[in-house]
């Protein structure tokens, strides 16, 4: 029995404790100036032509006091193509090519195309990464911190509209790690990126929603 308990401890508790120690050792975040945070993110992203990742999306619904968790995958290719698929039970596929948004709900057979204003297109946003950041963008307050090899940018829009706060965590090589969006209606969405692979050579055929 003693040996059994010893083994149980050795196999489950010790690794968990070691993990906790490691996490607490790297958990010390240092606040850095927003420009520095943005510049670090920009530099990391500069070396990336594309990436793929598996995602877990957690939607906390304040009104229903409920959390809905889904999983899926994302793909991105510079300069302006983004694909996201969320698996069943709330299956959806989204393809954003610059400012043209295509959405497909496979279960319902719904196809939807939306043309966003050019200033909301991916090309516009990612062109901001082409030159060094000298000052934070207007209309938002930005806070940044660095924790080991990750940078967290907290973006607070000045206008009190839909989104209250966006918190994005990236590795210094540009790979996304976590995205948290808090809304004025107290809803919260957390997207966690796993198995992120960059510069895998994604092609046009990898960005089809049907």
């Amino acid at each position, binding site marked *: 029995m003693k040996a059994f308990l010893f083994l149980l401890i050795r196999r489950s508790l010790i690794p968990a404790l070691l993990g906790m120690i490691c996490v607490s050792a790297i958990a010390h975040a240092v606040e850095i100036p927003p420009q520095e945070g943005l510049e670090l993110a920009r530099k990391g992203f500069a070396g990336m032509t594309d990436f793929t990742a598996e995602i877990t999306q957690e*939607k906390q*619904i304040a009104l229903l006091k409920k959390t809905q968790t889904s999983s899926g995958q994302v793909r991105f290719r510079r300069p302006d193509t983004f694909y996201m698929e969320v698996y069943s039970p709330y299956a*959806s596929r989204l393809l954003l090519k610059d400012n043209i948004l295509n959405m497909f*709900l496979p279960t*319902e057979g719904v196809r939807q195309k939306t043309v966003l204003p050019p200033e909301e297109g991916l090309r516009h946003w990612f062109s901001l990464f082409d030159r060094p950041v000298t000052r934070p963008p207007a209309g938002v307050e930005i806070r940044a911190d660095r924790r080991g090899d990750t940078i967290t940018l907290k973006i607070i829009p000045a206008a009190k509209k839909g989104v209250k706060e966006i918190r994005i965590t990236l590795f210094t090589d540009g790979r996304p790690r976590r995205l948290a969006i808090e809304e004025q209606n107290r809803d919260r969405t957390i*997207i966690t990126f796993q198995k992120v692979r960059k510069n895998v050579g994604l092609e046009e055929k990898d960005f089809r929603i049907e």
Partner: protein
Amino acid sequence: MMKTDQFKAKKNIFRKRLFQNRICESAIFCLILFAAGCATTPKEQLPFRPGATIETVAAMVTISVKAPRVNTGGHGYMVYQRPDRFHLVMLTPFGTTALETYSSDDRITIVIPSKGEAYAGAFDEMPDDSPLKGWRMIRLMGVDEPLFDPMKKGTSEKSSKAHGEITSFYDAQGLLERKKFGGGEEVFFRNYQSEEGVPFPSVIEFIDRNGARVKITFDEPEINKPVDNAALVPNLEGISIHPLASFKGM
């Protein structure tokens, strides 16, 4: 001889450790299975209670709207209170709020939080070319009679000021399957499930006389639980309000 004994002793220790390892792994495996089993225990389905009515609903929803020139839809959530108040939230694929709709009586308010805009007016003011035109039918979801009555089989007819002649179709069990309104609209109630004895159709489909279809699929519904009144009233603080007639979509 000595070497053979030592070998046997080592072999026994090895076997003992292997056995302990197996037990340990099995224990962890059983714990995982137990946890998984707890998470997937199906909810008890009580028999339908005759005359039980739906007073409130809070649920995740999937909506599809199909009309000759419209093909749209999405996932979201909804809070409904009998007879005709609802708050519907449609989400973007990222999980953020795309659009909120509040309805009470014959009034509807559509809020687009990201733009800080709202459109309010009577359902009939919804422009004909609006992609949400079909949503007008959602007010028909309010059912003023029980969805299950074993005495009602076949059809029953009645008339109301708001909807004119209404024909209700019941199945062999006495579950309401379909309602046909004088104006040509139809509502279908499908995939009934028992929520603590209250019959609840997990799919409701509306069809208007022009062929526009609105299908709502409910997931994880909570039936007849208290609903906070604030959940059914739009908070329009800091939002610019426009007439519903000017709503052209997102």
